[in-house]
């Protein structure tokens, strides 16, 4: 299974594996295996078809299949970390733009240690790092800025200094994986903080303006580079500084 399979919207996916086909010819129908469909795939009657363009991936242990595509318009999904900008304040919470078709709702109490008397006071235009709690096709999405199980912020909340920029969704997903080569290479060179939202927005804060710009540009440039090229690019940027 070394070849890369690229699918387009509407393609029917054959989820049987090469090792299985020979057995299926000789054996009688075994119990049907359960296949889990991840992003980019839907089931229409008996067939599985792709709805996004991208590379088809599968995990043989969990039997999970998904399509890794690259777009710039975000569709909210539960549990994903996102970087948002407050656009309005309402009675029950804030309206936060997370790049999806509808703005998300952030309740006033969805912060660490927030009570009715002790609420954070965010101005319009504040950048926040949150987690999506509610996301479906019939309601506006909702986010929270703390872990509601433990009650701790765990990195979520207001982001008050530094700089934020937009990138493609594919790059954001690769950055979330902490072994992303560009972040590792930068970390060896300069100290910085980063918050990655899978909605295609990245927040960076380093000690000085110049370093922050360097980190932001390195991350933006790393979109189409492989690990070796990333390290080379970061090395050149750090030397020029």
């Amino acid at each position: 299974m070394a070849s890369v399979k690229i699918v387009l919207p509407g393609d029917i996916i054959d989820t049987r594996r090469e090792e299985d086909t020979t057995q299926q010819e000789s054996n009688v129908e075994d119990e049907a295996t359960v296949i889990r469909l991840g992003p980019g795939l839907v089931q229409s009657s008996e067939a599985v078809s792709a709805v996004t363009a991208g590379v088809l991936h599968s995990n043989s242990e969990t039997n999970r299949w998904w399509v890794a595509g690259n777009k710039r318009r975000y569709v909210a999904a539960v549990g994903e970390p996102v970087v948002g900008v407050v656009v309005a304040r309402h009675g029950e919470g804030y309206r936060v733009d997370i790049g999806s078709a509808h703005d998300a709702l952030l309740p006033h109490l969805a912060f660490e240690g927030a009570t009715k008397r002790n609420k954070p006071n965010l101005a319009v235009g504040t950048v926040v790092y949150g987690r999506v709690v509610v996301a479906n096709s019939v309601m506006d999405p909702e986010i929270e800025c703390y872990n509601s199980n433990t009650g701790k912020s765990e990195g979520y909340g207001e982001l008050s200094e530094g700089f934020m920029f937009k990138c493609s969704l594919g790059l954001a997903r690769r950055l979330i994986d902490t072994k992303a080569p560009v972040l590792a290479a930068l970390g060896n060179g300069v100290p910085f903080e980063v918050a990655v939202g899978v909605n295609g927005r990245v927040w960076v804060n380093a000690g000085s303006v110049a370093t922050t710009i360097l980190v932001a540009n390195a991350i933006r440039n790393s979109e189409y580079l492989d690990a070796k090229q990333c390290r080379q690019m970061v090395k050149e940027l750090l030397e020029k500084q």
Partner: protein
Amino acid sequence: MVAEIGPSNIESAFLLEALKKGTRVDGRGIYDYRTLKISCGPTYGLAEVQLGQTRVLARVSCEVTRPFPDRPTEGIVLFNTELSSMAGFGLDSSRSSTQEVAISRMVERVIKQSRAIDSEALCILAGEKVWTIRIDVHFLDHGGNLIDAASIAAIAALKHFRRPDVTIDGEEAIIHDVRERNPVPLSIHHTPICVTFGFFGASGDMLVLDPTLLEEQVQVSSFTITLNSHREICALNKAGGIPLSPDQIQRCTQVALAKVDEVNEKIQLALKASTA
């Protein structure tokens, strides 16, 4: 429906802090253009311009029509822009925002009122038949500075375009099919290029050339100067914003002169390399 939101607090604060130190957030110098790529073809009159993340497509087409009654010997030039939601968030092709109208009018003015196209040469039979040249500009991606990209795309498309050849036989005009006779280029007098500057700070003392989308959202004033390769000023545009001093205007003009020569060279190279 998401309306266009402004930049966040930290983005504006960071941008201004960086500018005070003389740097821009994408690492450019204040007088640097972003990477400019122009490609013409495969059909005549089609030009795509990439200015950093901004992408614009211009298409020129022609048609034989009756002239305006008060201008029987002149051809007609029609101009149209499309700024749809493909270009960016919060943009909608059904509502023409003031920004889109301003850009559209600016580029139209630059092409038509500076007399870049020779309209008399578009006449076939006076009072009866003239060429109508139609320029359609589509904004594919809004990364800031749409005016410059649109003006480069429009003028490159016009220079690239070929119209069918015409022979006049007394009172008759024979319009030759492009397969019979090679199509001929339009008569373009000069190449106007727009150069846009953004100003920041309470008195507009910090300026940048070719603002990105974020810089456009934070700027306090914008100034566009249109020059051609003969060092003539074709248009000046400053709509609203804080007032600028004559020194600032002079400085911008000097910078723009150098930039226009570079852009013209790139257009020439793109026309030569065209696949049409």
